[in-house]
């Protein structure tokens, strides 16, 4: 079986698109496109909102509400939105399926980013915030020059776990007939072509891992060394050198509302 998967993946015709069929590169592009759009929209909504909530400590109920969205089954939501929205589109377009998919992916990404951003800002040491105001910083200066840089590790881990969830869930776009790497999984299943199905699974997992790695690198170069503890002479003990793990984000964001 593993040999079959390998030969499926190493067949160049499976990578190239034809007029008739979309290959791995094409579906990879579609997968990335759906994911990127959802992540950008989620970021545009959740990041400013999270910074504002964290900074002002107002409307914290929004965080709880966003976390409640997690209990919604994404497949159910997708199907619901598809049956509502898809019939309104005519012609050679898959917009009627893209919109529901993007809504589901955005809703999926928002809670992680939002709650981690809020937690990140709120977790900034009181003394640090106090000092910032005491130095004569204005509210926005405190937010952007002090709170945001210090919240970056948590914001990043929120974004990383959102990315993982979105990449994983974008596969179910194929359940409602769209492209993306999920196509290989659902098609392989229907065609009883298990090497194709397993290859699809491997491709999605590999994509998730690679993106997470890239984000980890980005995080490494954007977050101040003073916060990561990645300093030449670290005098911290324990596991401070260990790279932040996306799963710690999953935890923190869910632990946060309980602690609140």
């Amino acid at each position, binding site marked *: *079986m*593993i040999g079959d*998967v390998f030969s499926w993946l190493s067949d160049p015709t499976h990578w190239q698109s034809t007029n008739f069929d979309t290959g791995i590169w094409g579906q990879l592009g579609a997968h990335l496109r759906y994911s990127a759009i959802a992540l950008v929209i989620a970021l545009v909504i959740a990041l400013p909102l999270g910074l504002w909530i964290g900074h002002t400590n107002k409307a914290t109920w929004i965080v709880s509400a966003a976390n409640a969205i*997690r*209990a*919604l*089954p*994404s*497949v*159910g*939501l*997708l*199907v*619901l939105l*598809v*049956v*509502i929205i898809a*019939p309104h589109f005519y012609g050679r377009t898959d917009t009627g399926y893209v919109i529901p998919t993007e809504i589901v992916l955005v809703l999926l990404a928002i809670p992680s980013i939002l709650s981690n951003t809020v937690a990140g800002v709120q977790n900034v040491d009181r003394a640090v915030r106090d000092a910032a105001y005491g130095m004569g910083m204005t509210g926005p200066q405190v937010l952007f020059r002090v709170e945001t840089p210090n919240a970056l590790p948590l914001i990043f881990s929120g974004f990383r776990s959102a990315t*993982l969830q979105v*990449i*994983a*869930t974008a*596969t*179910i776009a194929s*359940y*409602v007939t769209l492209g993306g790497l*999920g196509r290989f*999984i*659902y098609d*392989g*299943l229907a065609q009883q072509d*298990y090497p194709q*199905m*397993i290859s*699809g*699974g*491997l491709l*999605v*997992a590999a994509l*998730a*891992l690679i993106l*997470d790695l890239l984000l980890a690198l980005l995080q490494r170069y954007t977050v101040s060394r003073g916060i990561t503890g990645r300093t030449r002479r670290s005098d911290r003990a324990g*596991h401070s050198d*260990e790279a932040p*793990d*996306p*799963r*710690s984000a*999953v*935890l923190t964001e*869910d*632990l946060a509302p*309980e602690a609140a």
Partner: protein
Amino acid sequence: MIPLDAASSSPWHFWGYFLDHRSQDLGYLWDHTWLSVVPVVVGLLLALPLGWLSRRYNWVYPPMMSITGLLYTIPSIALFVLIPPLLGLDPLSPLQVPIALSVYSVALLVRVVADGLGAVSPETLQAATAIGFKPLGRFFRVELPIAVPVITAGLRVAIVANVSIVTVAGTIGFDNLGRLFDEGFKLSTDTPYYPPIILGIILCVLLALVLDGLVLLVNRLLTPWRRAVPT
């Protein structure tokens, strides 16, 4: 005839739909419940020794966290289809779903257990040793109870996540509440057929709430000392 049709397709007809298909829906609910719970229990049982090892031996911690972190990045549908070839199961084996979910639960809970155990203060550990607990006794009588609240938080995440992930297995033909979505989708011919979809969403959310509540309840029973403190 037509008003009746409109009514039976309305989103509010989900209860009538449930009554009409009670045995099937209860079957889905039951499948969904055990698929959500059993893997978390299995995951916890595996995560306890692994988490303990990562605390007991410092060198175990970083690789353990990397591996479990890596497992958690694999999308669920990918894991469902990757499990059979890896374990030599039939591609349609019904075991792949609970196994995949157990893998996630372990991946999530190992860190939680390790962090929970790490949260026990050194003073408490020294005191326990001084009183005369042996390592195993100390683990079960002192460290584990103190780590319960942190582990509980992890269990809540795991179980709520499972309820949602199980529906994905419904799209590739496994019985659970996800099948209601499939059904609604298939019957949404000219106009949307809401009842099974809405019913599925409601049952999933209720199941998540109930299971979450159960974990909290068990947590309360296991940590009587926390009730004395106002939160």
